[in-house]
């Protein structure tokens, strides 16, 4: 009997609609208005790579040890270095990072002994060309410059 009444009065459907109705309040909207509002990115987010410079001297932190290139599963990092005759130390000349094949796993970042290589919170790294995804040292040090829109 109860079942019959439920069927006749469409209780099951009304219950469902009530759930829908409850969530109609504008307070419950959870769409991000990107790019008007920029999303909050977690601190540990693995995004665009950056090669850090020393904050004071401005010299690169990278010691050209090549560990990141070895750690990378996709073998997409190429570190070139030169031995400095005066200090007898390897010095970084160029650093290429092929973002088009990177899967942002973070293994390179973990491998770096001096925290020179870092995956940052920048996420706007799309490019119109494949070549645009191959970053050189300059790009890695400066970081991406995504378009800023005016409203």
């Amino acid at each position, binding site marked *: 009997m109860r079942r019959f009444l439920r*069927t006749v009065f469409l*209780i*099951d*459907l009304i*219950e*469902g609609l*009530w*759930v*829908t109705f409850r*969530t109609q309040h504008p307070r419950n909207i*959870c769409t991000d208005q990107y790019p008007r509002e920029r999303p909050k*990115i*977690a*601190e*540990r*987010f*693995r995004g665009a790579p950056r090669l850090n410079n020393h904050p004071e001297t401005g010299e690169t932190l990278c010691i050209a040890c090549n560990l990141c290139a070895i*750690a*990378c*599963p996709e073998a997409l990092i190429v570190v070139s270095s030169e031995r400095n005759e005066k200090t007898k130390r390897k010095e970084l000349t160029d650093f290429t990072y092929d973002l088009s094949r990177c*899967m*942002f*796993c*973070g*293994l390179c970042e*973990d491998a770096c002994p001096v925290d020179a290589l870092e*995956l940052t919170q920048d996420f706007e790294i799309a490019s119109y060309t494949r070549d645009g995804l191959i970053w050189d040292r300059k790009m890695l040090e400066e970081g991406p410059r995504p378009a800023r829109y005016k409203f």
Partner: protein
Amino acid sequence: MAQTFLDSTELVLNMGPQHPSTHGVLRVILKLDGEKVTGTECVVGYLHRGVEKIAENRTYAQFAPYVDRMDYVASVSNGLGYCLAVEKLLNVEAPPRAQVVRVILTELNRIASHLIWLGTHALDLGAITPLFYVMREREDILNIYEKYCGARLTTHAFRIGGLQYDLYDGFEEEVKRFCDIIGPRVDEYEELLTGNRIWIARLTNVGVLNAEDCKAYGVTGPLLRAAGVKWDLRKAQPYSGYQHYDFEIPTRANGDSYDRYIVRVQEMRQAVRIVRQALDRIEPGPIMAKVAKVIKPPVGEAYVSIEAPKGELGYFVVSDGSTQPYRVRVRPPSFINLQAVDRMARGSLIADVCAIIGTIDIVLGEVDR
């Protein structure tokens, strides 16, 4: 079939690979007699990336991010299985703190995976609303992942021997808050669906697979439990400390799509229960076992399987003593469960095929690897 109804000839219909309700690029060739399905054939492999081949050319640690890309809806579970398999070969165990964190993250992942399943499955059957709600809840889980390990989908959350990242400040509160909201939210989904007459009509007695068939086809996970077999690897062969948690294995008797829905919903509730218990078990300590930087397991082989959201996920790893695995075989639950589609769809109506494919909960990334 010699004589078909009204003398119509058999019709062969191609469904997919681009079909919204095949959950990716699955192609199903349907043989039809009128509206009745008389046979199916699945064509898979469109997403084949040769994960097992890649494994043989990477070091053990390097391969870990790739497993996330198989079942990308449940990447944390994939990672857990792989790490456990290599840990087994190395004969090490993750420290207790790491194990607890692993349990929390994999259970959250189970909820996320079931949520996605629920949303897409309902969408296949014409109910759009649940999809938005489940995505909202899943977002909370993904935010926790993002804060914990820096990625949302292909997380690479675990490392062989433990964890790379320790918990962030506020992790516990956030997970607790999520546990508090998900319960009522699951109630909401149930309000929308469980008693809904369309939902019931579309799912009861559709895609029935009894316990015998399940075993013959190697079908595991919620499908097996919906057929009444109380079997869950977390209980049967506990790993990562699951023996310390108190939870139930939901089962149902009929083995049809509706039962699978109930089982999965119950599993979400049980997962919340496990997460709550795990939160109480978090204790300070190391998060990484003693594992050499260069992982070189002794010569040998091991098969380790875990209860992934979709069923038994197994890794068979063969080591030849070098830094690279000699062979990694993945036993993907989706692939093997998908095989039973033919059994389930035979004799049903063509409109039910979507429901049947949806009810298995496949992810094509895992089917094709």
